[in-house]
């Protein structure tokens, strides 16, 4: 009986996926290729099905199909599919008080944005004047020279504003005694993993297996190779040739050689650039040239304040402008709202009455940037020469991971859960530090929040950061961030215990450039729980 049900649900899923694939942009090209195969000599009429399947296998069409299914399943963790963490996730936020908190936060953002518009006498969006359009077209590859006065613009919000919002959330199911639960996130009863569950998730790290990020010159397991790095490169090239996304994902778990990272990430995320992508990117560029949005100013200002001042990323500012301006016009990004607790901000068409028909999503991507938003994209600049490759991989990463870091939700990978996980791990496994923080009355999450919300971008040197993001992508989980945060605090424990102000603690943690991130993670995950 159970088997029957299972078969039926697989059958239904397969049917649904087939329908969906037919709607996809890749379908036309794929179908054409299959037709070409059918009319070729590889496929025989008498032995149609096996010979066609065989031919598809030989030409890589089968793998392409497998990849398409893989990516679809990852993007649709509904009742038919489970997210890789195993939890069944409803598509929108199931917990009411969190949903309300997010809605309130969105209202505040919207208010802040519209009042900025009124103050500066701007509209949310308008067509560009001809001269402006010409200037932008000319300066497209060097937008840092595009002259624009941004002195009046301020970011809509910063990470610490968002943290304040999170800390104020109260669960109606939890009555605190004597103000208990106001100091940390324990008043929000979300389930997070224990250390042993994390060890099973990050198995390869926890088992002490040789990882590329620890020491690339380690001897290889196979004597044919000079060292671990050479071995990983050889294996990685085979993985790339196979072009099968789940295999590429598995490969990332032990660390990715720098020279192959761009290709492997694109395979795992399904963001390799094809013709339809080129068209789409051109279209986005056209939109940027056609109309001007207030969000553009915010993004440009953000790049100026963050990446342009950063000695690791300043070189790439021109590329970043292109990426961020196109991103804000990309309606594909709206798909994240199917899986998230938030809803995009809407704006009213000018001169029309407030009604559903007259409101449009603003900006087209539905994402309002905050201070440091462009840092989600900066590390990708090290991986790709061409803006278009950078764009699609960044966008895929954002749509799978980054959006969860700036919304209120109960999702296991959401920022709230990550903060809670951080606190649990710190309290449980570093009780001396936890007590110290309590005694000096500083909430530990305040110290690490900016790391978590930005995915450590801007806080670690690019090569270490990319090693860390290999782990995120390989295990399909952001839970490595709180683990790293605890590991860093533990590593600098003595210095932290010596000081008693927030300023001094931040000074101890200001420079993380000497850390070997993967080694630190392996140390933490191999440790036995106290």
């Amino acid at each position, binding site marked *: 009986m159970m088997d029957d049900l299972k078969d039926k649900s697989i059958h239904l899923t397969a049917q649904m996926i087939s329908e969906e694939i037919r709607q996809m942009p890749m379908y036309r090209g794929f179908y054409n290729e299959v037709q070409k195969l059918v009319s070729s000599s590889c496929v025989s009429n008498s032995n149609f099905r096996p010979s066609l399947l065989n031919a598809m296998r030989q030409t890589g069409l089968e793998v392409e199909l497998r990849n398409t299914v893989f990516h679809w399943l990852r993007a649709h963790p509904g009742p038919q599919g489970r997210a890789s963490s195993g939890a069944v996730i409803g598509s929108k936020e199931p917990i009411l008080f969190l949903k309300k908190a997010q809605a309130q936060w969105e209202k505040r953002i919207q208010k802040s944005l519209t009042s900025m518009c009124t103050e500066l006498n701007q509209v949310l969006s308008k067509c560009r004047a001809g001269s402006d359009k010409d200037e932008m077209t000319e300066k497209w590859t060097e937008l840092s020279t595009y002259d624009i006065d941004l002195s009046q613009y301020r970011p809509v919000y910063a990470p610490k504003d968002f943290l304040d919002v999170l800390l104020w959330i109260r669960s109606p199911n939890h009555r605190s005694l004597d103000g208990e639960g106001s100091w940390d996130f324990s008043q929000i009863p979300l389930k997070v993993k224990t250390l042993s569950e994390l060890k099973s998730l990050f198995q390869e790290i926890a088992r002490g297996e040789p990882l590329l990020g620890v020491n690339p010159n380690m001897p290889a397991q196979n004597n044919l190779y000079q060292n671990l790095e050479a071995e990983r490169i050889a294996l990685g090239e085979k993985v790339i040739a196979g072009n099968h996304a789940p295999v590429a994902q598995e490969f990332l778990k032990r660390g990715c050689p720098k020279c192959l990272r761009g290709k492997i990430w694109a395979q795992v995320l399904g963001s390799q650039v094809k013709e339809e992508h080129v068209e789409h990117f051109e279209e986005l560029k056209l939109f940027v040239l056609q109309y001007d949005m207030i969000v553009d100013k915010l993004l440009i200002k953000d790049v100026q304040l963050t990446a342009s001042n950063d*000695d690791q990323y*300043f*070189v790439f500012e021109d590329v970043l402008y292109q990426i961020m301006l196109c991103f804000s016009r990309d309606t594909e990004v709206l798909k994240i709202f199917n899986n998230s607790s938030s809803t995009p901000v809407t704006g009213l068409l000018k001169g029309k009455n407030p009604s559903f028909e007259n409101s449009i999503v603003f900006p087209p991507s539905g994402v309002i940037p905050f201070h440091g938003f462009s840092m989600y994209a900066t590390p990708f600049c*090290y991986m*790709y020469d061409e803006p278009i490759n950078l764009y699609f991989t960044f966008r895929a990463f954002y749509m799978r991971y980054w959006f969860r870091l700036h919304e209120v939700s109960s999702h296991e990978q959401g920022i709230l859960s990550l903060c809670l996980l951080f606190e649990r791990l710190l309290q449980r496994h570093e009780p001396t530090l936890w007590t110290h923080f309590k005694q000096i009355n500083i909430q530990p999450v305040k110290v690490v929040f900016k790391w978590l919300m930005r995915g450590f971008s801007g806080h670690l040197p690019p090569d270490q950061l990319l090693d860390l993001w290999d782990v995120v992508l390989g295990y399909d989980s952001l839970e490595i961030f709180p683990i790293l945060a605890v590991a860093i605090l533990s590593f600098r424990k003595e210095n932290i215990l010596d000081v008693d102000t927030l300023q001094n603690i931040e000074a101890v943690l200001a420079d993380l450039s000497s850390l070997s991130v993967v080694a630190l993670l392996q140390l933490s995950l191999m440790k036995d729980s106290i």
Partner: protein
Amino acid sequence: MRVAFCTDLEKSVLVSNFEKRGWIQVGPDEDWNFYWAGTITCRNIFSVDSGYRMNDFQAINHFPNHYELTRKDLLIKNIKRYRKELEREGSPLAERSETGRYLHLDFVPITFILPADYNMFVEEYRKSPLSTWIMKPCGKSQGAGIFLINRLSKLKKWSRESKTPFNPAIAKESYVISRYIDNPLLIGGKKFDLRLYVLVTSFRPLKAYLFKLGFCRFCTVKYDAAVQELDNMFAHLTNVSVQRHGGEYNSMHGGKLSVQNLRLYLESTRGKSVTERLFANISWLIVHSLRAVASVMASDRHCFECYGYDIIIDSKLKPWLIEVNASPSLTSTTVSDRILKYKLISNILSIVLPPDGMPDVRWNKTPSAEALGNFELLLDEDLAAQDDAGPSSSSSHGSARYGRPSNRQIIRKSGWQVAVRVVSTRKRGNLVLRCVTPEATRTSDVSRYCSSFFVLWQRKS
């Protein structure tokens, strides 16, 4: 005995390093052990007229005739002479291609000294009349007096306009004119050059160390090779002094990107082997430039010197030596810069001083591995000679470590390693002789192989 230091430069990165070691500051006329001097002071100290004699417990931060390396015209002269010498000896290093270009020694752009080589320059210029050339005064620094020309007529124009009539026979100030590298590697659309610090503690035998924390200096304006842009110095010259006055200069990063990040970018976007080859060629470039002047340098045992090497990488990932500075700037433009220069001075001190911290000319100038800090050994001819003399001249613990079959080995010589294949083995009495051949045919391996055995060659002849 406290070490007494003297310094011509009151820079915090220097003084704080000296004071950290418990040294006391004295004036130049007093008994100093360690002098961080400006080049003019050095000229006086070393000049025959001054009659100044240094004692065994004094160290100074310049070689007497460092200008053989650091003056643009003398550097070119020495490199040209070095190449000719190698060619005469029949060294494999001096091998040329069919077109006549050196295969392994082509690391400076075609350069002529003016006014002396004016006619040779014109001949070369006429071979490619569309090329751009860069004129640099020999004695100046920080980008002063440099300009670009792309027409011979412009040079004639300059020669007419300058105060001293440009007569090849009587002009006093010399210039060098080099083929401009018009296809530089760009990152983010911007041109950059590499600044690397190289410490030399001795020229004969050559002992040179490369500071691993080099950086790229970026232009603030986008690079545009269009002719009209020739006059926009901000796009072309990467000297920080010039860039500092450009409108876009940012003092938070100072236009500097670390070599580590450059490597990350190149490996990720161009691949590992081409990146390794680039950095190997950079090391070779430095070694060859030092060898080129080694024979004419006064290798005074009191001296050490930290040079600032300026290198440009072209779009084919080939490095070009632009110039060598004797007094690289110790001014810090950003916080990271200050930290870097502090580490630089600190590591220099631990390398040039004997373990007890007091300068001593009798010390063998062989620092321990820990003393190197952020420096890596480029070449120590002393150690290399010792390696050759000893019985275990090719280290077979290479194969033991990697557990590889014994016909493949790594040969290590004072910081270099080359993978070789053993062709045959013979016994001569107690000695085991191995005939080896380099394993791969990549250019970087050939250069390494050549140079690794270059030392042997020199000693034989």
